[in-house]
C-alpha cells in the first residue's frame, strides 16, 4: 500500500518536472533533479521495506552530545 503511494508521488513529481525539462532539452537540470529524485525514492523505499540504514542523527548525537555535556559541566561550575 505504502509502496504504491510512494510510487504515485514520485511518478507525479517526475511527470511534472522531468518531462518539461526533457522537452526543453535542459539536460543538466534534468541530471541534478534526477539525482535528488532518486535519492528520495531510494530512501523512502528503503524505509518502507525496513532495510537497515545508518541514521545520520545517530552519528550527530554520538559526535555532539559529549561536547554538549562538556559545556554543561563547564557552565555548571560557574
Amino acid at each position, binding site marked *: 500500500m505504502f509502496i504504491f503511494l510512494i510510487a504515485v*508521488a*514520485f511518478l507525479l*513529481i517526475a511527470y*511534472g*518536472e*522531468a518531462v*518539461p*525539462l526533457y522537452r526543453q532539452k*535542459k539536460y*543538466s*537540470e*534534468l541530471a*541534478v*533533479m534526477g539525482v*535528488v*529524485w532518486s*535519492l*528520495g*525514492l531510494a*530512501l*523512502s523505499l528503503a*524505509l518502507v521495506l525496513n532495510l537497515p*540504514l545508518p*541514521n*545520520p*542523527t545517530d552519528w*550527530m*548525537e554520538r559526535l*555532539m*552530545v559529549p*561536547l*554538549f*555535556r562538556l*559545556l*554543561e559541566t563547564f*557552565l*555548571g*561550575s*560557574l
Partner: protein
Amino acid sequence: MLGSREEGFIDPWQGAILLWFSVLPTAILFLPSLLVSRAQQDAWIAVVVATLLTVPLAVLIGWLLGRFPGKTLFQASEAILGKILGKAFALFYVLAFVQLNAIVLREFGEFLVTAVMPETPLIVFTVTLTALTIYAARNGLEVIARSAQFILPLMVSFFVIVLVLVTPKMSPRNLFPLFEGGLGSLLLGAFIALGFTGEIIVMAIIGAFIQPTQGVKKSLVLGLAGILLFLTLTVIGGLLVFGASEAARLTFLAFSLARVISIGNFLERIEVLFMAIWVGGVFIKVTLNLYIAALGLATAANLTEYRPLCAPLAALTVVLSTWLFDSLTRVFFFVEQVFPIWALIWEFIIPFSLGFMALVRKVEGGRP
C-alpha cells in the same frame, strides 16, 4: 540580475518579516520549555543574551552583503573560496538547510499529532504542508514575502490578544528571584536559544534580493528586534502565568498559554486559532528553507533555474523528516543537546571563517 536565478526583489521591510518567520514559528513553540527547564525564571534573560550574541552574525551578514552586493552566500563563497571549494560549501549548506527543514517539518507534524489530532498519522501533515510549500517556493521569493506579509498581521494580533487575555492569570512574583540558578544555567539556556536565533543566516542568501541594497541593514536590525520582542514576550508570558517549575513541564508553553484563556464561559478554546496561525508561520518557514536549498543546489550545479529542484528536494525532506527521528522525545533531545552545537558550526563558525577568508584574500564584490 545575471546568474542569480531569481528575478524578484523584496523591500527591506519584507526582508525583516521573512527573518522573523525564519526564526519565530518553531522558536515560539519549542524553545520556551527547553529554556525554562535550563534557566528557570531567568529564561527571558537567556533570550536577550542569545539575541545579543547573534548581533555579531547580523553584522557579518550585513558586511558580506555590502562587500558582495546582489550576491547570495553561495555565489559569494564561490568568489572567496574558488570554484571547487565554493561549490562544496554551497552543497554543504544545501544539506544543512534540507536537514533543518526536515527537523522543522517533523516538529510541525509532531505538534499537530500530539496536541490536536492524535489519531492522524504524522505523514499526512508533513505531506500536505510540503505539497503546498513546493507550489509557493516555485513562485519565487516575492511570493513568499507577500504571503508572509499577509500572515504577519494575523499572527501579531492574535499574539497580542492572547497576551492581553491571560493577564488576569499573571503573577509578577513568578519572575523573582533573579539569577537564582546562577550564571551557568543562564548561559546554557542562551546557548540553546542561539541555535534558533542563528537561523537569521538565511538573510545572507535572501538579503541579495533586497532592493535597495542598503536596506539590508534595516532588515537585519528590524528582524533581530522583532525576534527579540516576540520571543521574550512569549517566555515572560509563560513564566508569569505558570511559574518556572510548571512551565518547564509543559511541552508546548505558548500553546498552553492560549489554552488557559477562559473568559465568562464563552471565550474558550482559542488555542485552535493559535494552531491555525502557527501552521501559517511554519508554512512560510518551510517554504523559505526549501527555496534556499533549491537555490543553493542550482547555484552549485550552475543551473539556469532552481524551480525544477523544489519538488524532489521537498520529497527528500519529507522522507528525512520521518526517518531522522523516531519520536517527539528524540526531536526534543536533538534540539536541546545536538542542534545548538551543530548550529554553532554552520550558522556561526563557518560564515565567520568565510568572512575572514574574504578579508585575507582581499576578495571584493563583482558587479552589483
